[in-house]
């Protein structure tokens, strides 16, 4: 009697799983899910994707070793110039609050002139200076993030160059527009300190 009940329950579960799978595949092929960047995810989908992203990055960046000389003036100069060339369109610079990319990309790229807790990315660390946040930034710059607009800079840039950008990011939120201009300007004979 008990085994009969168990079998029917198992059958029930198998049928339910089959129906769910067929419904899911049917939904994928139906084309009903809106893919436009101007049509935002519902809360459940957003939470699921964000959790997937953050857990994946946290696991993957766990073993990265942070250089001890991150707070050096040379790293700031090299990383600042690269940040200005490669990142400001999406992540802004002091004195700017939006760009076409920040308005149009979804999810919106974080404004890196603000500290992690102010630009709404609490997972990046409260101060943007703790080890977890630094490892996370390095990993994201190097590997990028799928379907977010964030490219992987690793294929064209060595680790030291990426660490220089990470070093610059630690000080970026406290820079004035004038300080930013001086630090990031590539003079006529400044080839990026390479």
């Amino acid at each position, binding site marked *: 009697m008990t085994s009969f009940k168990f079998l029917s329950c198992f059958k029930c579960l198998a049928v339910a799983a089959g129906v769910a799978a067929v419904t899911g595949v049917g939904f994928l092929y139906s084309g009903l899910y809106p893919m436009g960047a101007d049509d935002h995810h519902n809360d459940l989908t957003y939470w699921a994707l964000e959790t997937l992203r953050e857990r994946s990055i946290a696991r993957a960046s766990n073993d990265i070793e942070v250089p001890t000389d991150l707070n050096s003036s040379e790293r700031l100069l090299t990383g600042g110039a690269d940040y200005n060339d490669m990142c400001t369109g999406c992540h802004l610079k002091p004195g700017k609050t939006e760009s076409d990319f920040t308005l149009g990309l979804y999810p919106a790229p974080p404004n890196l002139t603000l500290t992690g807790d102010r630009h709404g990315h609490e997972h990046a660390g409260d101060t943007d200076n703790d080890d977890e946040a630094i490892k996370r930034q390095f990993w994201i710059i190097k590997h990028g993030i799928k379907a977010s607009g964030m490219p992987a800079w690793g294929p064209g840039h060595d680790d030291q160059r990426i660490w220089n950008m990470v070093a610059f990011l630690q000080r970026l939120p406290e820079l004035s527009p004038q300080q930013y201009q001086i630090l990031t300007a590539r*003079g006529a004979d400044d080839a990026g300190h390479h």
Partner: protein
Amino acid sequence: MKRQSLSYFVALPALLLALSAQAHDPKEHMKEAQAPDCAAMKDMDHSKMDMKDPVMQAMMKKCMKAMHKDEAESHEAHGDKGQTDHGNHDEKADEKKPAKHQH
């Protein structure tokens, strides 16, 4: 057949050239490079400046470099001007000099 192998000869070097140009080279940005606005440092609150701060050290390095470059350029320009003036002077002197072998 010949046309196909010829297209390989063209396509392969073009592909290799395209791949080699993928890495971001800072020199790419040299043409549109801005000079650091070091004059803005004069307007900053010097009492709040900490010379041990890497940001301040980096700004000083950048501006010292820019200053030396400006100085070198002005010396060079001055030198060129001096040479030009000197050259003109010589020409004028030559003009004023009576030709020794004039008859």
